[in-house]
């Protein structure tokens, strides 16, 4: 049964890395700037989930803090980018 769990963690990690690759494709190809912002948003989301999975894989609680920090900073950066897209400036 522990083999099953290791396989499931490996499968989920592979899926998330593939998802990050697809986001990177959209980030590079994306015809408009808002597509790139959306791709970056999805990219940090997948990165946060990958950090959580690494915490499960190595049984360490440090990765949880990393995931929380990625979520906080990613949210702030996406908001800043969206405001920049709409207004052309971030702090007015």
């Amino acid at each position: 049964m522990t083999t099953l769990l290791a396989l499931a963690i490996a499968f989920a990690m592979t899926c998330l890395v593939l998802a990050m690759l697809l986001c990177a494709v959209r980030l590079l190809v994306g015809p408009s700037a808002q597509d790139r912002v959306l791709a970056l948003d999805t990219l940090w989301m997948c990165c946060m989930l990958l950090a959580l999975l690494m915490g499960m894989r190595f049984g360490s609680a440090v990765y949880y803090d990393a995931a929380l920090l990625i979520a906080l900073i990613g949210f702030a950066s996406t908001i800043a980018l969206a405001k920049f897209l709409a207004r052309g400036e971030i702090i007015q």
Partner: protein
Amino acid sequence: MNPIHSMPAWAAVPVALLLVLGGAIAFIGALGLVRLPTFYQRIHGPAVIVALGAGCILAASMLYFTVLQHRPVIHELLIGAFLLMTAPVVAMLVTRASVYRDLQSGKRSPGGPGEVYRPPDERDGH
């Protein structure tokens, strides 16, 4: 010394199921981000990742550490609540910025804002 080997079977099966489900849903959401044709359809891909993919993986992590440490570990709820609160805000701000930019540039994509809503200066003419 891998902590996985101290997991009992009754907990390993649901954790594995949640992980497989979460990983597959995250991949499907990213696939939607790449495959869908217009921006207003693409915005739905990340919403799937936030709601279901992250939910499944966070629930798996909670169950895993609860069984592993023999005590209730619920601090993943903090990330879950934060994501559920911020995801609609992010989606709304990015979509609003996109509507604004599409209307500014006069772009007429099928199903986009130019079809549904015309900027005021164009409406006055007709």
